[in-house]
């Protein structure tokens, strides 16, 4: 058993190369261990004090989020709220204030839960993940990262150091909506994120939709753009509901049946499209949509 608090990124990567596993807030790892789902790795390296992983900084391509940025910061950062709003919606729904204070974007992405809240927003926003080891660095598309529940293509010596978001087109908007039984410490029954860009006449020029908790990984709706293009938002939402339900591959578990998930993920997808289009048209809908409008309300 060994535990190290990394003071530099190099120190963290060296520890990973020697077999240690990374820990940031521990809100998945430690809870999972205490529930008996997994045993605590014999060697841990804490990466939560690395200032270089805690940056939110503009890049030539858009915005870089250090992997150590917490959900509490994602949901309040002015640039994320203004331009990458679906991600702020999602971060504001994670756990409770205490979870959001220590839980990180890197941890959420690499834990690879199919029910993760930030995954669908990151997918519709076109995010890529930067993985780094002591030997190399590479950039991975989300669709190449997640392979199943809790499984990624990252090697054990690789650390997620950043999530890169491309610049947003204008006028565009995004939203994440989740079906939930309670308002805190909840895991998505199903969820959906949408991003849309509008034409001058208010129709959708381009759009994307991704779904949470209806497949072994976060699921991009492949036909979303074709279905929504040149449609008014309400018509696009109606169309996307059917396509999203068809695309879903849900299971039945203690939280919901597959039938219920297949139906409700279409409803969530339609609401996400409507909220994203309203934001794209300049309307301010507070973060998260689930609280600003209410998931049960008609959008």
């Amino acid at each position, binding site marked *: 058993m060994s535990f190290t*608090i990394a003071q530099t990124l190099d120190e963290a990567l060296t520890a990973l190369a020697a077999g240690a596993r990374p820990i940031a807030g*521990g809100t998945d790892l430690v809870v999972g261990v205490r529930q008996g789902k997994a045993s605590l790795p014999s060697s841990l390296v804490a990466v939560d004090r690395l200032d270089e992983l805690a940056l939110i900084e503009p890049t030539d391509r858009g915005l870089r989020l250090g992997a150590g940025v917490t959900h509490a910061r994602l949901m309040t950062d002015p640039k994320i709220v203004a331009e990458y709003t679906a991600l702020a919606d999602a971060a504001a729904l994670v756990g*409770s204030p*205490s*979870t959001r204070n220590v839980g990180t974007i890197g941890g959420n992405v690499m834990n690879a839960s199919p029910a993760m809240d930030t995954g669908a927003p990151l997918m519709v926003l076109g995010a890529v993940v930067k993985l780094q080891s002591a030997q190399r660095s590479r950039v991975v598309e989300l669709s190449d990262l997640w392979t199943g529940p809790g499984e990624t293509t990252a090697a054990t010596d690789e650390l997620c150091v950043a999530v890169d978001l491309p610049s947003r087109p204008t006028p565009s908007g995004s939203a994440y909506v989740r079906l939930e039984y309670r308002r805190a410490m909840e895991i998505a029954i199903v969820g959906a994120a949408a991003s849309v860009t509008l034409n001058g006449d208010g129709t959708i020029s381009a759009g994307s939709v991704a779904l949470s908790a209806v497949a072994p990984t976060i699921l991009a709706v492949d036909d979303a753009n074709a279905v929504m293009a040149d449609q008014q938002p309400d018509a696009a939402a109606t169309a996307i509901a059917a396509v999203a339900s068809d695309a879903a591959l849900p299971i039945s578990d203690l939280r919901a049946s597959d039938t219920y998930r297949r139906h409700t993920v279409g409803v969530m997808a339609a609401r996400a499209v409507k909220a994203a289009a309203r934001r794209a048209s300049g309307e301010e809908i507070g973060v998260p949509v689930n609280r600003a409008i209410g998931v049960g309300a008609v959008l």
Partner: protein
Amino acid sequence: MTEPLTLTVNGVDYPVNVDMGRNLLGVLRNELGLTGTKEGCDDSECGACMVLLDGQPVNSCSYLAVQADGRSVTTVEGMMPADGLHPLQRTLLEEGGVQCGFCTPGMIMSASALLERNSNPSDEEIRIGLSGNLCRCTGYARILAAVARAASEG
């Protein structure tokens, strides 16, 4: 194999040796004898174990003690002035926001962090601030009233 570390709790440095897998809650209660912080669900659901870590609420049941090395931990024992009650303790008593009392320390920690960064929270902001804390006795209304009063009376 144990790890040597220094826990700074309520301004006091405690050198301890603990196994890497121990949670902060257990070390606070057993090694340090600070039993004001409670174990409820042991699963980050109920908030009875809430402490402040560098001023922010954290579920101490699901936080490794070794990760708190060098950070500042505040427990409910550290909230009480020497000569009386913290405003939240007083308003919780006066509003009837305490019945069995098991959730109260966690409620105080979450509420104090909220009021520290937002001295005039709306009812909705109070609800969100306490959303990681469960109470099985009061129905919450009197707890919310107590926090609102503590905010207005300071």
